[in-house]
């Protein structure tokens, strides 16, 4: 076999080796090797994942409802139409707004009132996006900060690393319960021991709709151990020589951080960003555990996330067909955002093995 195979110049390589081994060209061998390594996933995908995914796609175009007497019918895109159906009415203040039958007000912009056939869908989109915009950047930044701190060798750094990672291993049911107690207005630790000594009357973190997103963000910043871990693994791989060279050039800490650390760990940033996006769009457990006992989604549905809507339609109202449609719209939304992130990533992610 020749030695100059380079993934960036496959055609050249093909040409050069065609003559040497006519039956199995290196290009083909390479593809075969590639599929061999991909085989575990492809098999697993076909056996365990593809079927259920396609089944839910099909269900999304039916009116299937578990245990209902109603016959299941193929209804095309009706579920998707119901989701997006809006009715916008102009109405002055004090005037009563009448929407189409079955429509309920979702929100209003100025004099315009927006009614929707499934106003909870829009509400859940709104809450989820708000949360994504606030919580995701904050927890990424904090995770990176902690990773950098614990990448410096101070005494007991392994212990600190474990401590910062610790909240991640707390099971969600338990941490939800901890925060229910911790954030209580009347006698929770936060209001009682952290704010009251400074003369601040703590808010009702859990019931006040205005604090819904801040409270959940606060909780989210507590569970960033895995993200921190990924950053740490990335930081471990930055060659020290680069810092040496920069230091010789007189670069200060922030300059080194910006020009060496960030580019070198940019693949990890991309990873954490994409995984974070997927996780944020599918956010469910904590908000559910915090609000399920009272009313799923909290007061004024201020903690009503997209996946709660999916769950509610599927398991509270048994509308599996509609829930599947909701789920596929979520997949499409996440996919679009992810592809967009990947498109921009060619500009800011540095791969030593060459970008692809």
């Amino acid at each position, binding site marked *: 076999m020749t030695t100059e195979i380079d993934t960036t110049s496959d055609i050249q390589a093909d040409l050069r080796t065609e003559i040497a081994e006519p039956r199995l060209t290196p290009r083909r061998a390479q593809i075969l090797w590639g599929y061999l390594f991909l085989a575990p996933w492809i098999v697993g995908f076909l056996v365990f994942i593809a079927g259920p995914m396609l089944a839910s796609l099909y269900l999304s175009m039916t009116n299937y409802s578990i245990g209902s007497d109603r016959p299941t019918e193929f209804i095309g895109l009706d579920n998707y139409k119901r989701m997006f159906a809006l009715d916008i009415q102009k109405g002055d203040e004090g005037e009563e707004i009448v929407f189409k039958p079955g429509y309920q007000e979702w929100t209003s912009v100025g004099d315009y009132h927006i009614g929707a056939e499934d106003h909870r869908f829009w509400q859940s989109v709104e809450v989820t996006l708000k949360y994504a915009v606030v919580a995701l950047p904050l927890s990424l930044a904090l995770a990176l900060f902690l990773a950098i701190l614990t990448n410096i060798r101070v005494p007991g750094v392994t212990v600190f690393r474990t401590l910062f990672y610790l909240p991640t291993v707390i099971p969600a049911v338990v941490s939800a319960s901890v925060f229910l107690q911790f954030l209580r*207005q009347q006698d929770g630790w936060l209001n009682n021991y952290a704010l009251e000594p400074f003369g601040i009357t703590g808010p009702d973190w859990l019931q006040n709709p205005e604090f819904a997103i801040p409270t959940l963000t606060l909780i989210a910043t507590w569970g960033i151990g895995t993200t921190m871990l990924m950053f740490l693994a990335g930081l471990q791989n930055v060659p020290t020589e680069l810092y040496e060279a920069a230091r010789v050039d007189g670069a200060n800490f922030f300059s080194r951080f910006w020009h060496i650390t960030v580019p070198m760990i940019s693949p990890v940033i991309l990873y954490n960003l994409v995984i974070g996006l997927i996780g944020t769009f599918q956010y469910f457990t904590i908000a559910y555990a915090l609000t399920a006992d*009272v009313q799923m989604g909290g007061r004024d549905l201020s903690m009503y996330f997209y996946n709660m809507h999916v769950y509610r339609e599927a398991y509270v109202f048994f509308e599996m067909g509609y829930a599947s449609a909701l789920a596929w719209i979520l997949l499409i939304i996440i996919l679009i955002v992810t592809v967009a992130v990947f498109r921009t990533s060619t500009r800011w992610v540095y791969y030593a093995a060459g970008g692809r």
Partner: protein
Amino acid sequence: MSKVKVLVPVLVMVALVALALAPMTGDSAVEAQEPVTVTIFVGVGTGYQPYQQDAQNALADEWNATHDDIKVVFEYHDNTTARDELLTRVAAGDPPAIVGPAGVRTVYEISNMWADIGALMEADVAEINMDDFDAASFDMYELGGRQIAIPLGVYPSFVYVNETIFEDGEVELPPVEYGEWTWDDLKEKAMALTQDVNGVYLGEEGFDAANIEVYGYFPFWTNFRASTILFSPEDAGVQINDDGSVTATFNQEAILTASKFYHDGIWKDTYMPNIDAEGAIGEGVSNPFVSGRVAMGVSHTWLFGGMKDGVESGAFTDSWNVYPSPTALNGITTARVHADTFAIMDGFENQDAAWQVLKWLTSQDVSLELCKTYGCMPARLSVRGDWEAEWLEIFPELDLDVVYGALEYLDAPNHEGYMPNYARAWDALELFWNNLRTDPDMDVEASLNEVNAEVQALFDEALAE
């Protein structure tokens, strides 16, 4: 060389598929000689507590020791997730044989999944001994002409009173006969007993409403329909007309009065806890009443078990008893009741085996044992004396006249009774109830009218299909 290169990936893939599918061939060869397994799915209601599991398993062992053809297995699920599990299995065509103990609400919410046992009951009428039941108790389980269950037990409710708080507060205890006090009387006593952390009573100078220690009244573990039924609304808010249509009357006078009673009680008069305070009261205890911070609360016979826990753990040292439900404005007294039973799933293939087990579950001895562990009063009249003696051993002072007296004032139709579009209508009402308990500025009357219209629309939508 190159053939090997092609072969290797193919072989590896075949091996992987074989590995993935291997156990399939192993398991399918189970012989048909085995007894029919009747699985009882526990968890949609009570029944999953550890001591309950022990009692139920002991019963199953008894059955299995004497039967070769049918094997009984109690399967335990956790209350918050049981429904998801059940629905997954039903949808996947793998339903359990029997579900229970299930309350009225569960029965109605998944009403299409139950088998009709009417014909089976007809055939075994002597064995069941229908005489042993209050005739009306069967009606609750008749859905659209189908009989889906035999009654197992009922949980009547009363006012649980912390007598120590009354004594310390020098307030006269409620009357012990039904029909002798009203909700206004209850409110008056509750306000006289509400006390802040400094021991200052409500209405006294310096009372700190933000830090209340003792609440006069706390209707815990409840929901919209359960809370408002106590004010004796007509038709429990669901008026079924002769033409088959259904009118939502949740904005009727009695329910409006009830809603205002709760909203004022929480936000204006502050003798009832808001949700934040509910959390503080519930901290560390198996039920809010044993916190010693609640003077009065309405609950059911199922709280007997919780009281036992609270007393045994040492958390509750006050003296307590049960008192009659107050009378509503319209002169009617309502003692809210819950009921539990077991029902066979429609999709289970061996209906006859399931029926044998269902008969056994609701037989005299077994239903008594089950009711002892669930806290229900047995539906079978013949075993009520044994049930009563059991509880007196634990609470020698328990006022059983109040307990039995409640049976005269049960809510019919039941507060969990039929509604079209059940799950969605229930959910809409709960949203109103939650807002009432979290929003101090709510316009109760307007919101109630709004939710009633919403529920009416849900009724109409379901009946139009």
